[in-house]
């Protein structure tokens, strides 16, 4: 059997794939955070809760409304996105003129409300969501077993990431978004409806988180606390990469997932903490973040 630094190739590749999938989730979530931060200048602490709501919408949709996985893939981000737009309209807009730390605090409060309420209704232990039939089983490649669903998660997440990149960097709407990031007052003067743009942006960022939640539903137990622990790691990823660039967020997310996977192979005790350690290293060597602009 082929060995890589004393670890069987199959195990090595398996962990690498798991790392890459985690990385895809980091990428999707930090991408949404970056998009929201760009225009609203707030860090959305409710992002983990939105990811969790996406997974719950999928689970409950199937349980009570008979909505299957593929429909949920579209509907859950839509519903959560609309919910996010409502939050922006009713709550976030009212503190838009204040120090941006208040946005962080407000969304933190929201996260506590969503997470705490669902814990009371559904308990902390997670529920299982079945893998869709088409994606059950896997491929036996020469060196490892590749479950179909994991391959699909990777493709779907990367596809959505690239789609977002294309939307923001190559379309007219994206150009508005980028211009609004630079100078919202001037945009408003040019006749662009900036408040609407802000609402849509928040909705879109939140929908990305919910999409990640749908993808995660068959992989991990669906529980109310699934989002918050993930979010703190994503914050570290965002500090490492900086929120200035879309591609930066994607690349950093995937890389951190891979590093985490590798750590799981060679030094599993540190698998939980390695991303935080990388963050410390980046803060020491390049305080602005890998893709960040110097303040």
């Amino acid at each position, binding site marked *: 059997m082929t060995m890589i630094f004393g670890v069987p190739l199959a195990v090595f590749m398996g962990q690498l794939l798991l790392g890459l999938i985690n990385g895809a989730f980091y990428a999707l979530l930090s991408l949404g955070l970056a998009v929201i*931060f760009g225009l609203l200048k*707030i*860090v959305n602490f409710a992002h983990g809760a939105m990811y969790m709501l996406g997974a719950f919408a999928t689970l409950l949709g199937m349980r009570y409304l008979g909505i299957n996985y593929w429909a949920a893939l579209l509907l859950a981000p839509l519903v959560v996105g609309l919910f996010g737009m409502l939050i922006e309209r009713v*709550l976030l807009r*009212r*503190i838009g003129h*204040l120090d*941006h*730390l*208040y946005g*962080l*605090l*407000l969304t*933190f*409060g*929201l*996260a*506590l*409300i969503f*997470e*705490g*309420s669902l*814990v*009371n209704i559904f308990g902390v232990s997670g529920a299982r969501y079945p893998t869709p039939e088409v994606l059950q089983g896997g491929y036996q490649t020469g060196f490892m077993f590749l479950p179909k669903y994991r391959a699909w998660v990777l493709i779907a997440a990367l596809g959505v990431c690239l789609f977002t990149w294309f939307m923001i960097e190559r379309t007219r709407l994206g150009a508005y978004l980028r211009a609004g990031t630079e100078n919202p007052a001037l945009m408003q003067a040019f006749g662009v409806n900036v408040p609407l743009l802000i609402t849509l942006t928040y909705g879109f960022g939140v929908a990305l988180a919910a999409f990640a939640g749908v993808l995660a539903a068959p992989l991990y137990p669906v529980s109310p606390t699934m989002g*918050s622990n993930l979010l*703190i*790691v994503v*914050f*570290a990823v*965002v*500090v490492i990469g900086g929120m200035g660039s879309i591609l930066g967020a994607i690349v950093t997310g995937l890389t951190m997932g891979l590093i985490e996977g590798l750590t799981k192979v060679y030094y599993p*005790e540190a698998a*939980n*903490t390695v991303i*935080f*350690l990388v*963050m*410390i290293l980046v*803060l*020491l060597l390049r*305080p602005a973040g890998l893709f960040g602009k110097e*303040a």
Partner: protein
Amino acid sequence: MATTQPLELSPGLKRERRAQQRRYAFYVALVLMGLVAPFVAYPVFLMKVLCFALFACAFNLLLGYAGLLSFGHAAFLATGGYVTGYLLSSYPALTPEMGILIGTAAAVGLGAIFGMLSIRRQGIYFAMVTLALAQLMFFFFIQAPFTGGEDGLHGVPRGELFGFISLRNNLAMYYFVFAVFLFGFALIQRTVHSPFGQVLKAIRENESRAVSLGYNVDHYKLVAFVISAGLAGLAGSTKTVVFQLASLTDAHWHMSGEVILMTLLGGVGTLFGPVVGAGLVVTLQHLLAQSPLGNWVGPILGVIFVVCVLSFRSGIVGEVLKMYRKNFK
């Protein structure tokens, strides 16, 4: 022979004197209230309030006076608690004040490291860095051999203060905690009203201006961070001695959020705000725990958070001060 004229004070200085006298009278009244409090209310509950009040005051030094939002103060609370708890459990000869001192020193050391790392970024990034570092500590506490992992440390002996005052008596314990709180509060009061505190406020208001005036901003921020971390550690250490336990709850990010809420509710940037906020939150948790809503503490705190941010940003003490200034000056 010239007659000696008594020195005339300018009216402004007189007013200043009188305001200071009023302030000191207020402090004295509060200390007296603190002294009789254990005969009115349950001492253990009061001690809990005092520990969290000190914790919130320490946090407020950073947010209220230096404008730095730390989302990782649970790490210092827990470090103080675990170090003190471990030492007092493993070395019975150690007196509680020594255990608390060493626990506080550990928090100061951790504060120096975290401070140096986190002040390299500003604003929202600062909050995220402190949160991530505190999460790192959380995982460390789960895995480290001396913390008891998921179970935590139980049955930490209260011991004899200075070797001869038994703290097993709740009243003695209360007065010790009250003294610790007064020490921490006085330290913060001095810090805030010193030239150092003035520079901190300048940094909070306009950092680049403070830099252009020639202040080494990073140095000031770091010192404030270390003082804050140390006092948070002191609160954690004292809390461990009072409740004889140290657990992961103290290290969890919920705790970092709770201290923000206490400060926000009471009044950011006011000396007494965090004390009032801590009192209210602890009381609320206590009342809810006995009511049918016991499981809803988290969401209720979340709602208070949202309401505070939306329409009550000065906090209770801040609003009272505003009203006082409007009507009496």
